[in-house]
């Protein structure tokens, strides 16, 4: 029997179809708040189960366009997706990590054409505004999320979802969790600021020049496809974003006082 699960991230509903009830159970556990019922999906992926270790487990992620279809491959999955037909096919074992990666890749491709991106950043909402804390591993994304006071709502501690909506940039909650191991709240808010994290002995916010902001943001934007046109679009998105949203360095000592500087 076919099961269909719709997962809406960043306001974009994507349906996953499978015959495996165990996989549906995994999806429900993994995506909780992000699962929608009675929502028409923008895209549908059929998920075919294969045995673990069917593919080369050492293979890194590769994303490329072939005959009008995107191909995503990694050691634990193979996928193809036609944005035009709005359909895709995934081969993976029944685990949450592979589908998580396929969804991340799909969203990066969708966002690239609409001025948005996924950013290595934790993000949170305070007083109706979203704040992003960006950095690579060990920069402090999860630390700053853990230190958030009770009036702060976490959107993610790992991958922030940025969309351009009309004339402003919005941050959306994502289920893409880092060390915190918990999905963010499925809400959105206009982005007030981006902070580039640096651990230090004291808390300080230092504004940076737009050129450096673009360079630093580009390092932290998740993008997997070998496609010059889309790479160019992502760069343009980062430039437009920096022109609209303040980007600063946040040197912080890991205790709760850092939040006195936010919001």
């Amino acid at each position, binding site marked *: 029997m076919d099961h269909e699960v719709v997962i809406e991230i960043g306001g974009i509903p994507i349906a996953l179809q499978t015959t495996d009830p165990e996989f549906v159970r995994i999806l429900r556990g993994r995506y909780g708040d992000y699962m929608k019922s009675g929502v028409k999906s923008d895209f549908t992926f059929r998920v075919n189960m294969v045995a673990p270790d069917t593919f080369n487990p050492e293979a890194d992620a590769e994303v490329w366009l072939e005959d009008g279809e995107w191909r995503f491959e990694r050691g634990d999955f193979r996928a193809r997706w036609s944005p035009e037909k709005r359909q895709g096919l995934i081969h993976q074992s029944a685990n949450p990590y592979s589908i998580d990666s396929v969804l991340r890749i799909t969203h990066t491709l969708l966002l690239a054409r609409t001025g948005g991106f996924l950013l290595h950043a934790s993000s949170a909402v305070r007083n109706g505004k979203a704040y992003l804390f960006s950095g690579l591993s060990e920069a402090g994304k999860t630390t700053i999320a853990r230190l958030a006071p009770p009036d702060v709502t976490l959107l993610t501690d790992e991958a922030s979802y940025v969309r351009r909506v009309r004339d402003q940039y919005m941050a959306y909650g994502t289920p893409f969790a880092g060390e915190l191991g918990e999905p963010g709240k499925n809400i959105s808010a206009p982005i007030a600021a981006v902070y580039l994290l640096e651990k230090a002995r004291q808390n300080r916010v230092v504004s940076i020049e737009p*050129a450096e902001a*673009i360079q630093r943001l*580009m390092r932290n934007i998740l993008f997997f496809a070998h496609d*010059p046109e889309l*790479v160019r679009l992502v*760069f*343009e998105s980062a430039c437009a974003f920096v022109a609209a949203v303040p980007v600063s360095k946040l040197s912080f000592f890991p205790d709760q006082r850092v939040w006195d500087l936010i919001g």
Partner: protein
Amino acid sequence: MPPAETYLARSTDIAARKLGDETVIMSTVDSTIFMLNPTGSIIWEAADGNTPLSRIIEERVCAEFDVPVEQASADAQDFVDQLAKHAILLVSDEPIPPVKEVP
């Protein structure tokens, strides 16, 4: 025989954005990012494939920054070598024709 001229042309495999008098350039091949200072930005903008580097230095860089030609030439050569190494800038001892767009 006079020394050969050097001609520069911007690669088409890049994305670039000018911000004030600085320029951010990204290779769309390997996503390497470069930040050009005001001098680098002037050379970058003047790299049209037809203007020799010596003329760019004399007429643009030295005129703008009041720096001796010898020093500007040495600095420019380092800059050109670095960008050429990443195929951001194309370098030739002959004028470089523009790349035709494939229809």
